[in-house]
């Protein structure tokens, strides 16, 4: 187990470091943008010129999105932040089984005195830790950005919840991709399926929030259960979203394990 873990650290350290740095930097730059360009103020000025009943309607629709916290939250739903987190999750999961089968190295590893449970469990634990580091880097970028640019700080609990919710979202993408990986012999195929699920989830959530006829689909997406704006505004109840995302992780990893422990290798 130690050998597999060491191998995973050696292999993925550069990827993780780069992704964590980018995500942290991205969240830092979002704070810089919020501080230097008063987008909210400009739009509020425009809204103030509207008749009072229109002002009320527009403000309720935006639900605080024009505040500093709303714009920082947008940084977490931004495609770049999403792509970074999902890419790491999908790469780790696709390589865990399908990648090793495709490379033929699974035969080398599993012929050692190592049970399949230890092998699979090590990959899951490593991915959990790696994605947690990634989430923490993003949160750190937000915190540092707020301090550097003198933005109103968030409560530590809110930041913790944000990190946990992001971790659960990318963890769900990992779980689903790991399931595909456990059935597949090609890392590319497993990764493609994983990315397609994540992309579909993201797009359906965006389209559903803009187009009322598609709104019924939104609760079936992973991204519906990721709520940075509500978390940072301090009124999110995370119990249900976290339960759903954790459920996806458990089902993905559980079914993946069920398949992996039975399949002939390589």
């Amino acid at each position: 187990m130690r050998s597999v873990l060491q191998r995973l650290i050696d292999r993925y350290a550069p990827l993780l470091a780069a992704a964590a740095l980018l995500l942290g930097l991205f969240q830092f730059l979002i704070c810089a943008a919020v501080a230097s360009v008063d987008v909210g103020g400009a739009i509020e000025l425009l809204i103030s010129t509207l008749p009072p009943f229109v002002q009320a309607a527009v403000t309720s629709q935006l639900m605080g999105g024009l505040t500093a916290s709303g714009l920082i939250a947008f940084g977490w739903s931004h495609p770049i932040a999403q792509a970074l987190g999902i890419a790491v999750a999908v790469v780790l999961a696709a390589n865990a089984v399908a990648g090793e089968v495709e490379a033929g190295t699974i035969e080398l590893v599993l012929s050692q005195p190592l049970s399949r449970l230890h092998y699979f469990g090590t990959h899951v634990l490593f991915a959990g830790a790696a994605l947690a580091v990634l989430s923490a880097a993003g949160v750190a970028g937000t915190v540092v950005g707020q301090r550097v640019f003198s933005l109103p700080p968030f409560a530590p609990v809110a930041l913790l919840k944000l990190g946990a919710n992001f971790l659960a979202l990318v963890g769900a993408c990992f779980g689903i991709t790991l399931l595909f990986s456990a059935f597949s012999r090609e890392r590319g195929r497993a990764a493609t399926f994983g990315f397609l699920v994540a992309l579909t989830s993201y797009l359906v959530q965006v389209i559903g929030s803009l187009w009322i006829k598609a709104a019924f689909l939104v609760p079936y997406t992973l991204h519906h259960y990721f709520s940075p704006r509500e978390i940072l505004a301090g009124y999110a109840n995370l119990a249900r979203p976290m339960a759903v995302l954790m459920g996806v992780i458990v089902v993905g990893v559980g079914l993946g394990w069920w398949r992996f422990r039975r399949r002939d290798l390589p």
Partner: protein
Amino acid sequence: MNGLEVSDLTKRYGRVQALRNVSFSVAAGEVFGYLGPNGAGKTTTLRIAVGLVRADQGSVRLLGRAVGEARARESVGYLPGDLRLYLDMTGASLLNYGARFRPGRPPVLRAQLLETFGLSETDLARRVKTLSRGTQQKLGLVLAMQHDPDLLLLDEPTIGLDPLVQHAFRGLLRELAGRGKTVLFSSHVLSEVEAVCGRVAILKAGEVLAVETIQTLRERVVRHMQVRFAAAAPATLAGLPGVTRAQVSGREATLWVQGDLNPLLRELAGWPVEQLIFPEPQLEDIFLGYYGPQESRHA
């Protein structure tokens, strides 16, 4: 206790019957050949033995332990037939990676193996992807043997090795067997199995045809001998000792020979022989010994 016990092993992949009721055992201190053409089921047997493939029926015991226990592989060394290493690792990091799986069995043979295979520090410092196929094979052998395993499972181990290294490797296997280690040596080359093994199982289309000593195998194998005479080939060749069949064409004759060669060679010495070609026996020749010409063609 046997080092390896294979009992009634059966495996099917869809419509393909990979193994059918395969049984044999290998004693401690024995180098055992597992001989068969490509696709006969040798690799499937070994993959079942290390727990990579699940048998439909039957069982394998490694040093008295069931395959399912990861601890059973603690004292086992395995070289896959289709060896694939982590290409991004250096040779040294790959060997350390393998060693970390067995904290209780340090790589005591590593230095000796590196010397036997002629692997230098420079080779070990290079990334695996920059090494030749032969050097990767040597690295795979060191990885399989560095912890001085009690049971060695080697699937076509000499692929890519030059003759000198093959010779040294065979010496090493004999030395291991002399120290009570169990070795299963899978190959499709009869001559290398003959050179190092005491007994052999012959596998064909997923079934064990026979488990024999090398001596018995030598006696049963039917080999081709081509003889060119200075004058017309004698008509009585088919009746010579050990000749099971003879085909004559002018001065040239092809003989199918079984068993001890010496009586035949003494007889041939009585004729003016110009040339005698006695090629390495092939697997086909073994199947000929067990099945005769018709059946052996399907091997």
